[in-house]
């Protein structure tokens, strides 16, 4: 159930307009990878606030744990050891939903109102409307949503929409001890990020920059990277993410065609009924059935 029902700008699988009476401030969470010490306090805070608990796993020969996002772990730290011209660098990236301005998940989702976007930019899953088709997973350029085997619903970071709705920052930002995660209006965060990039450049990171990819019209979770020219070294952060061609075809060009085909099917069925009448069981069939018993 959307807490901010007046502030929804987009809903999946719906054609009626969304409420437009008021507009909230566009928010953003900035993750400054150059300040991250990989302490996983954000992972702990996320579990605590959302009251999710993954199972106690095993060590896989790396510090990452849990190893991947799950329906219970909405954020994970991804550690990569990279040799650059500066020597060894340990790049630690907090992974999770980017809250795209143009969300591929929402576009792909066929279930009415299962994915919504608030006017503050947060993309939120409404699990009670989710039909478990998993199209949002295909639609996501960052491979974020995870389907639960337990209830066939899809889960991901909500950007603590419940906290933000009442004027609090997300739990991860609240917890981060080094200020690597900060939260505010997108404009303020962008300004802060620019200051961080200037500091990094003064320390010799010549290709430091902001990761706010244009392919999805920017994101409401964005990064400061020491090496913005090679996002791939940050555990495979995509260089130019965009919504999958399949979704674009399905929801773009193909959507009217599909709607027409669907309508045609319904139309055909209706006339079939009118002309032929309902299907009835013949006397012979009924007898056969009785005999088999």
């Amino acid at each position: 159930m959307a807490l901010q029902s007046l502030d929804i700008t987009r809903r999946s699988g719906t054609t009626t307009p969304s409420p437009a009476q008021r507009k909230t401030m566009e928010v953003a969470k900035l993750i400054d990878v150059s300040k991250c010490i990989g302490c996983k306090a954000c992972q702990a805070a996320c579990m605590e606030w959302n009251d999710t608990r993954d199972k106690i796993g095993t060590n896989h020969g790396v510090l990452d744990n849990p190893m991947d996002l799950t329906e219970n772990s909405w954020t994970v730290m991804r550690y990569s050891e990279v040799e650059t011209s500066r020597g060894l660098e340990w790049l630690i990236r907090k992974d999770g939903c980017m809250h795209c301005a143009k969300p591929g998940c929402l576009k792909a989702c066929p279930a009415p109102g299962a994915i919504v976007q608030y006017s503050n930019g947060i993309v939120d899953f409404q699990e009670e409307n989710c039909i478990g088709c998993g199209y949002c997973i295909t639609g996501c350029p960052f491979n974020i949503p995870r389907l639960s085997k337990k209830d066939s619903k899809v889960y991901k970071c909500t950007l603590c929409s419940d906290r933000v709705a009442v004027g609090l920052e997300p739990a991860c930002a609240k917890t981060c001890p080094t200020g690597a995660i900060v939260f505010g209006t997108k404009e303020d965060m962008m300004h802060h990020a620019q200051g961080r990039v200037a500091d990094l450049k003064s320390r010799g990171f010549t290709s430091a920059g902001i990761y706010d990819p244009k392919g999805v019209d920017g994101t409401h979770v964005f990064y400061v990277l020491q090496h913005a020219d090679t996002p791939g070294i940050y555990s495979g952060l995509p260089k130019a993410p965009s919504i999958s061609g399949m979704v674009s075809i399905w929801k773009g060009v193909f959507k009217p065609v599909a709607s027409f085909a669907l309508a045609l099917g319904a139309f055909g069925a209706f006339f079939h009924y009118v002309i032929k009448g309902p299907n009835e069981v013949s006397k012979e069939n009924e007898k056969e059935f009785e005999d088999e018993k």
Partner: protein
Amino acid sequence: MTNHWVDIKNADVIIVMGGNAAEAHPCGFKWVTEAKAHNSATFIVIDPRFTRSAAVADLYCPLRTGTDIAFLGGVINYLLAHNKIQLEYVKAYTNASFIVKDGYKFDSGLFSGYDDAKRSYDKSTWAYELGPDGYAKVDETMQHPRCVLQLLKKHYSRYTPEAVSNICGTPKDIFLKVCGHIATTSAPNRTLTFMYALGWTQHTVGSQMIRTAAMVQLLLGNVGMAGGGVNALRGHSNIQGLTDLGLLSNLLPGYMSLPSETETDYKKYIAARAFKPLRPGQMSFWQNYEKFHVSLMKSWFGDAATKENNWCFDWLPKLDKVYDVLQAFELMHQGKLNGYFCQGFNPLASIPNKAKLIDGLSKLKYLVIIDPLATETSCFWEDHGEYNNVDPSKIQTEVFRLPSTCFAEENGSLTNSGRWMQWHYQGAPPPGDAKPDAQIMAGIFLKLRDLYRKEGGAFPDPILNITWGYRIPHAPSPEELAMEYNGKALADLADPTDKPKIIKKKGQQLDTFLQLRDDGSTSCGCWIFAGAWTEKGNMMARRDNSDPSGLGITLKWAFTWPANRHILYNRASCDPSGKPWDPNRKVIYWDGSKWTGADVPDFKPDIAPGNQMGPFIMQPEGVGRLFALDKMAEGPFPEHYEPFETPIDTNPLHPAVINNPAARVFKDDRGDFGTSKDFPYAATSYRVAEHFHFWTKHTRISSILQPQQFVEIGEELAKEKGIKAGDMVKVWSKRGFIKAVAVVTKRFKPLQVNGKTVHHVGIPIHWGFKGIAKNGYLANTLTPFVGDANTQTPEFKSFLVNIEKA
């Protein structure tokens, strides 16, 4: 900490060495990021491993575990050779100009006075040359061949960049780069801060590592300055409070000490601690020792402590030796100690050489555990297969488990690394029958006192006479205990300078330790805590974080001991004329009639600049010590000694004296040290951010974040051994083995040391056979039973192991 957490934001250069603040102190580490963001600070990490701290450092510098003195000795040599010391500071505020006694000598790894049989020194030559007036002689020109500066130059001239690189394995160019950054802070308007933790303390030369850093800071003029100092990052949230309250076997509260068995005369006991000035006009603050001591005895024994009975001096235990934990477990092992109380402590996990600990615990008659958790120690007798391979039928020790509350389940004060005593409130009631530690102790005490009253005993006096005026005798409240350690007037106190005036009425709480008396008219449970709970109430509960100077000095937030002072030795932040060395770091200043400023002056407030009084008021000579006199066990200058288990089997500086000649080694442990032939890899144990000691393996979230025991090795060693990331490996030392998952990393690089390639094996400590994380082995199965020569802190950070795929 000489300074405090917030003050780190004022530093220009920050060095994390002998610690890993981002990993072990992530919240305090925020001040490093503040210094980088707002002070353009350069952040350097010096560690065998590229740590989480190193991940955000401007410069990472590798070194072999246990070689920090060689490294910092090299820094001292660099600073002296390149004339990068703050000369005016060194001259006025250190003992550089003091002349050392003739006969002092350092030769081939040993200082003068060594007794091989006793493994200790006769320290009589480690002293100043005294003049006929009883004061130490100085040579203002610092040219005298036996003045401290000249001896210092000579001692560290051996620590060339080449020697450093050869011992530490640090590439010479990186070492010189670090020296360059450090040297910039010899300017009066730049400061360096050292942040260290157990990575320095847990070596057989741990105390001397810290001293070397302190010497570097004195040479640079960084002690007493905002953004300077030598800063110990304490581990447990109240471990600072533990040492402050004297919970070590040889200490009394407030860093006073118990008498030794030869000190049976009260007057002599006091005289040996109430140091007389070694230079004219010095404050030598420990001259007040008797006031603190008598007030403590009055606090403990009330009316029973009188001038006539020397304030119950005879009731104090007289030590024949230090009873540290290694000593305690050695005595258990020998069968000489047969009952053990274990409060908030899990020694089976926290003390080295698990096999020896199991042996000792198995010989006890009884073991009492006071802890919120079912610790490994409380279950040492349980068979947990390879994790704890014991036969319960052969162990007769009776174990009592008394469940206590954890910190969040009671009111109280926690003292942080920066000496801030912060009051906290109960967050939730304790589960089940758990009781606060004070209640448990009170219950035991009252029962004991009853028994002594009814049945008598060999020496009942201290038990029968201890003051116990708590409102509920079996449940002393944290508030009552806090008021007790603050201290109060036992009679009306007259103003010493204005006699008839009464400054405190009988029964009133004291404001400061300056009000303590040696005539029995005051009581105080811990003199340095005086001021924490005054007539105005609980000063520790204050929560006004206003910071008028912008330097992070918040005098209205909680209470900082001593005397609410945030930066120790802050008189040294001003030049001899009373002007701050750096106008942007105006901590205190002389306003023409008194010392004042953002902080509480660490000085006599009315002594004008130009007077002879030095800024290091606790020292009889009033200055910081580059030469430590007789205060350290192994020498007045720190010298590089190898760990007891060294991967290079020699000491390149003096092959005849390889490791600390003054470290205590028990007979049975000698044979338990391995050599590089069988154990070729340098091992070091440490903590990871996801866990807290051996506690959080009992909590679900921490266990999710880092579920299973692992060890870290470099890619090169992994390749040599055919180990892949995720493989199960066996790691063993002379004392036992563990099995864990291998994390193969680029963050451990092989180092070239004395013509040999040295690989490290990193061993996080957090797992064990109790808790909800995946069960594992206690890491201290591997570590050696030997400690620092001064503190006896075990050498957890440097030992030898072998490793193979399990």
